[in-house]
């Protein structure tokens, strides 16, 4: 009896130990860097793999393990490894207090100030790019891209509506939108199921109606959404856009679905970022038939955000990680890859790419801009962003009056801060 019991118990233990041994082992050797990023597009992955290959060739014995995940899975994975002492050595992430700022607070980002001194990175990147790195104190991350957003437009459809020049004021933009409606053209495409697509317009409307100082104060929490009259004006404008200028059925479309309207020539405008230069070509559009103008907010600021590569504070290979970051952001490497992730490199020695004529249109936007305003979801906390989206959509459907929207948002912000 006892012998049988022991035999089966031993078998069970062996089985359990065997099963536990199936867990994956991480890269423990000091010559392997683990690099986490989001899933790369068909045109981006070969370029990234080439970068890695060139780094490995230049550093014999060193291997870079690239791991890609979808955007949400990437965020979840990083959250799960925070504080565990494991995870990547280097990872890609979005700048902003609501995004990378949370990882910095969670101890998942190493302060790279000593490496900035060692490699003179302060001289390598534009001041705008560095602003996104130093915003949390110290130097967190190395600039990877400078993304900006503006209005892409279809020249043929503008011509059809009798629009000869790009709008330079908000009133001109509204007049152009009216002209497009009169010509039977959908002025702008948006996909409402991904709330951030409409959010881009609302962000620009707040910038337009409130001005740079007040808009910054609103998104940083130092001004009240309930007290500023410009907030109501912003929501009133949003409602106007929804009622008159958006594509039909926008609330039940994703941004991918609505973008088809732009690609097919059924919508005249789209608020997109520098990454869209390649997207329009991939979808069969002639880039010479398109133009780009900054949303005419009147403040001179450019809508944009930054992306960076960070070093995990738990990494035991920070020196090697810094070497890798120095390599991939160096001038020769960036010259070979410019235009792949953004039209402009964060490296100030690298000019815009020439393959796509749209890339060149961005350079003056950056140089002429009097600063940058970030998307709401990079400025606000996660839960406030969710409420910001709910209210923007409720204004569009008429469930919330524009005059009540700011007060409702502020009530939520006050409640979440308790």
């Amino acid at each position, binding site marked *: 009896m006892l012998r049988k019991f022991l035999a089966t118990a031993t078998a*069970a233990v062996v089985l359990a130990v065997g099963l536990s041994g199936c867990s994956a082992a991480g890269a423990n050797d000091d010559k392997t860097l683990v690099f986490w990023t989001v899933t790369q597009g068909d045109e981006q992955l070969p370029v990234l793999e080439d970068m890695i290959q060139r780094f490995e060739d230049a550093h014999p014995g060193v291997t870079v393990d690239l791991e890609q995940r979808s955007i949400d899975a990437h965020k979840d994975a990083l959250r799960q490894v925070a*504080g565990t002492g494991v995870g990547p050595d280097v990872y890609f992430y979005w700048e902003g207090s609501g995004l990378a700022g949370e990882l910095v607070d969670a101890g998942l980002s190493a302060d790279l100030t000593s490496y900035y001194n060692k490699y003179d990175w302060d001289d390598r990147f534009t001041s705008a790019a560095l602003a996104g790195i130093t915003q949390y104190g110290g130097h967190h991350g190395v600039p990877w891209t400078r993304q900006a957003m503006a209005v892409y437009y279809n020249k043929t459809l503008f011509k059809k509506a009798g629009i000869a020049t790009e709008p330079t004021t908000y009133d001109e933009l509204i007049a152009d939108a009216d002209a497009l409606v009169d010509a039977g053209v959908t002025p702008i495409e948006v996909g409402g199921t991904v709330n951030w697509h409409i959010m881009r317009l609302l962000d620009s409307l707040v910038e337009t109606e409130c001005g740079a100082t007040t808009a910054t104060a609103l998104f940083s929490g130092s001004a009240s959404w309930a007290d500023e009259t410009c907030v109501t004006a912003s929501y009133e404008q949003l409602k106007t856009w929804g009622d008159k200028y958006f594509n039909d059925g926008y609330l039940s479309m994703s941004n991918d679905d609505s973008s088809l309207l732009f690609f097919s020539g059924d919508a005249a405008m789209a608020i997109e970022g520098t990454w869209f230069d390649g997207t329009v070509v991939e979808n069969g559009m002639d880039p010479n038939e398109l133009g780009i103008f900054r949303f005419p907010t009147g403040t001179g600021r450019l809508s944009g955000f930054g992306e960076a590569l960070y070093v995990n504070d738990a990494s035991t290979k920070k020196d090697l990680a810094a070497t890798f970051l120095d390599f991939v952001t160096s001038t020769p490497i960036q010259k070979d890859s410019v235009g792949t992730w953004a039209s402009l490199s964060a490296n100030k020695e690298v000019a815009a790419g020439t393959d796509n004529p749209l890339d060149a249109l961005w350079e003056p936007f950056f140089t002429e801009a009097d600063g940058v305003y970030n998307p709401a979801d990079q400025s606000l906390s*996660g839960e406030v962003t969710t409420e910001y989206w*709910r209210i923007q959509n409720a204004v569009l459907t008429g469930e919330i009056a524009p005059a009540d929207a700011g007060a409702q948002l502020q009530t939520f912000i006050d409640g979440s801060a308790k």
Partner: protein
Amino acid sequence: MTTLSPRRGAPSSYRPDARNGMLAVPYLVPALVLYVGFVLYPLVDTVRLSFFSWSGFRTRPQDFVGVDNYVRLFTADPVFWRAMLNSVLWVALSLLVPMLLSLVLALALNRRMVGRNVFRSIFYMPAVFASITVAAVWRWIYNPTMGALNQLLDHVGLGGLAHEWLGDPSIAIYSIFAASIWQAVGFGLVLFLAGLQQVQQELVDSARVDGANAWHVFRNVTLPALRPTTAVVVVLTVINSLKVYDLVVGMTGGGPVQSTQVLALWSVTQSFQNHNVGMGSAVAVVLLVISLSLVVPYLVWSLRDNK
């Protein structure tokens, strides 16, 4: 009128004793460890976390806040009650529509008829698809400009009924539910078909000899015999309805204006999008309490005569 008595199983020669019980213990340990690790511990920890404020990062502190998360959930969360209402609505509609439809189809397909197995396969097929696939298919059907539904309505002269099926907050939840019916009917159909095989033909024949019409046979013979099956279908329907998530995520993501938000999705959104694990856990606990309060009494009631 003939009544149905529970069937008795054949007596077994197997007699459990203490010695066999001891031998079973080591075999049970791995399953027990997995159950405790992956079911019991997360469950208890979720309840614990609902009393804390925590962003979800291991490096961030978990601050005890007592019942604050629940107070905020019930009094200040602008989405919670909408999610609650939608979840309750989903349960009620699921018990009403797909379950009854499953029963009717099972009764129809339990008769001898040409192509019976083909029809059974056709009706069951949607149940095989992953919910996210069903969501993608129906999202395209509902597409306001290129979708099949609006185009069909146009072609048959009912263009006036064309609608933003997923974009109108007042009907979006029902549009998703229609897709759910399409997917869920097959599962109930199979269970009811299996249950109908347990109805003793001699009882049906006896009832007919006694002069019972089709409705009387169904009411007094078939339905009582289906009671255990119905209990299973009801319980599974309630549980599946309360945890509906993927269809909503795939079709609307909870929008527009959170009009299709449900408790399971709101729990995930609070925890992983809003970085508010305490609030998300509180929603999960509310969901658990509702599930138990609906399922346990019904199970006790429906199975009380089957001991």
